């Protein structure tokens, strides 16, 4: 209750309401004490609504990871107890459920969110109420919160620094057309791309955005054709992806002649559009189901045991797995699950994830990840055609010129 009594300035002014504070605790709805041997943790991925397609699998993966940790004895000798909320793909409800988890259930950590919009809605809650969000998805960066652990989530430099030079060097392509859904991630990616292109001598011949969920791609695809581009970079998200790839095929494009590299087309979307539509296109992400590590083999097997044999694993899901495990490691190191303690001890921790070694950067709480490029096969999985030998430093503000030498996000916060 200590948290709840801060900032009650107004209440003191009204004796009437102040009486309320003195009301017996038992009258207050919803307070409940957790069994001392359990640690409640919040899981908040949409089970309904538009982004449920991906978030459902993230929810499954989170439960799997928690079960694994509990099987190994839990955290600090206590079992984790998952409180699962369904934010229904709406920022409004994300915010409401986050409040419930942080204030009512008093969880020390929320594993959740998939879109940046949902994270932004949750942010005020965890920042003001001193909670902790473990954020999984690759995103546009441009954020430096001290109440968020960006474990496993790639930022633009980790998807672009490898792929753009690779497209130029290995495929000999020079004219880039950037397409994306209309929101911060694709726009941030485009900005970082432009910086990198300038450096390596590629030309950006166009960047265009379509509303999320938009499925009429004809005009934009024909614009790509007439722009003179020789390679496409796609930051299209969600169900638009299927329509986009199909439209490319329908208008007679051929990925051998006009290659396409995507940042958000995972195994899930490829499965949905049919492997033959994506065949031959590239994706740049730190994780694919086909990554060849022993950890990944067990991860894929474990997930299929939970979700069925034809389930696929994908990068966002792997990030959920990383996040939960790293949180558990940090809590163990701190000897405490309190958000400040976990954050203070997360920096520098390393975890052998399915994708390989992942390390939390102590400055910005983002993760060192291994950039990879995959090429789609007809069966909907991807062959890895290029990968870094070492994890790459995360630069969340690369879109506005952050470099390894000139950091914008540090332990002190962001300085733009």
């Amino acid at each position, binding site marked *: 209750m200590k948290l709840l009594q801060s900032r009650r300035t107004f209440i003191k002014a009204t004796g009437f309401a102040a009486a309320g504070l003195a009301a017996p605790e038992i009258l207050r709805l919803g307070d409940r004490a957790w069994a001392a041997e359990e640690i409640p943790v919040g899981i908040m991925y949409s089970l*309904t*609504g538009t982004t449920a397609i991906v978030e459902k699998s993230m929810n499954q993966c989170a439960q799997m990871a928690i079960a694994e940790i509990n099987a190994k004895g839990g955290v600090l000798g206590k079992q984790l107890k998952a409180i699962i909320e369904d934010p229904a793909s709406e920022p409004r409800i994300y915010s409401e459920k986050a409040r419930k988890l942080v204030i009512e259930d008093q969880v020390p950590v929320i594993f959740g969110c998939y879109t940046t919009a949902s994270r932004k809605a949750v942010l005020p809650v965890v920042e003001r109420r001193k909670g902790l969000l473990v954020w999984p998805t690759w995103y546009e960066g441009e954020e430096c919160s001290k109440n968020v652990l960006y474990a496993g989530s790639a930022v633009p430099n980790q998807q672009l620094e490898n792929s753009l030079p690779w497209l130029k060097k290995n495929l000999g392509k020079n004219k880039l057309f950037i397409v994306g859904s209309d929101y911060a991630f694709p726009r941030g990616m485009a900005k970082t791309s432009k910086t990198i292109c300038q450096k390596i001598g590629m030309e950006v011949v166009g960047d265009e955005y*379509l509303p999320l969920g938009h*499925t009429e791609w004809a*005009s934009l695809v024909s614009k790509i054709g007439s722009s003179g581009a020789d390679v496409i970079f796609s930051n299209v998200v969600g169900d638009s992806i299927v329509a986009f790839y*199909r439209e490319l095929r329908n*208008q007679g494009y051929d990925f051998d002649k006009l290659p396409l590299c995507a940042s958000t087309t995972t195994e899930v979307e490829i499965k949905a*559009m049919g492997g033959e*539509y994506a065949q031959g296109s590239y994706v740049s992400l730190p994780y694919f189901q086909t990554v060849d590590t022993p950890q990944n083999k067990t991860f894929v097997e474990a997930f299929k045991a939970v979700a069925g044999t034809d389930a696929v694993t994908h990068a966002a899901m792997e990030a959920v797995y990383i996040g939960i495990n790293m949180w558990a490691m940090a809590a163990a190191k701190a000897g405490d699950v309190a958000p400040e303690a976990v954050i203070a001890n997360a920096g520098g921790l390393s975890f052998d994830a399915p994708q390989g070694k992942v390390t939390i950067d102590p400055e910005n709480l983002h993760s060192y990840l291994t950039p990879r490029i995959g090429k789609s096969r007809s069966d909907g999985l991807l062959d890895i055609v290029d990968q870094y030998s070492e994890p790459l430093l995360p630069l969340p503000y690369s879109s506005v010129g952050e470099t390894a030498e000139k950091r914008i996000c540090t332990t002190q916060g962001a300085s733009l």
Partner: protein
Amino acid sequence: METFVIGLSIASILFMVALGLAIIYGTMKVINLAHGEMVMIGAYVTVLATKHLGFSLYWCLPLAFLITAAFGLVIERTVVRRLYGRLLDTLLATWGIALILQQLIRIHFGLALFGIQIEGLGSDLQNVPVPIELQQSFRFLGANIPAYRAFVFTIAVLLGAVTWWLVYRTRFGNQLRAVSVARNMAAACGINDQRVNALAFAYGSGLAGAAGVLVSGFKTVSPDMGTPYVVDAFLVVVAGGVGNLIGTFVSAGILGEVQSFVATWLNDVYGRTVLFAVVILILLFRPQGLFVIKSR
């Protein structure tokens, strides 16, 4: 030229969805907000029929038409019928139907609660195999024309023609028009107006279902795919003039082209904005729509 062709193809989908809506709205002045879900059901029929029955996309057209028509019939009989004359209420009730239909697909018609999963349902995106001959594109008058979009256009024109014949050249059509102009009078003349309503609703839904088949081949199939279509289609109907098939045809053409050209010049967001502005302008200067059957 390519922009024009794209406009045509946007227009053909708009037209197919709007046609059903126009018939339903024209006959019983009911706006069916679950109309988009009829498109969705059409698409899911395609998914299931191709997956489990080995149907090709072509055969899914009549199948989806029949199944969605049946859905339409049920909706009309159980809900819409009780709400004639309460337009705004129908709007709400059909939105409720839309919610239910979407969720039914997501939870496998409730079977998921018992642990039964049907491949092709659920909240995932689905995919529909497109016949290989429709995956090509060909050159025509110097423009690159995707075969699939040409196919969509052909079907749209064909269905438009069939509908026109049905409405203006058959006994059923006569009754339909009679009911839409003067319900009581038609009923007094011995036309079973309830039957006409039910059939019109079913036919309109069936058209949406057929549109769903076509959409499934080049757009995304998911439970909430249908929602955006209703508003666009309704704007087409309004702009074309209520109860006027030719008007619907022409306004779908105009709005499709407007969207396509603006989208090419600026972007799709402005394409939609301008489209909406055009509809408002049409309403401003021709409140009855582009084509009006003047009557007393």
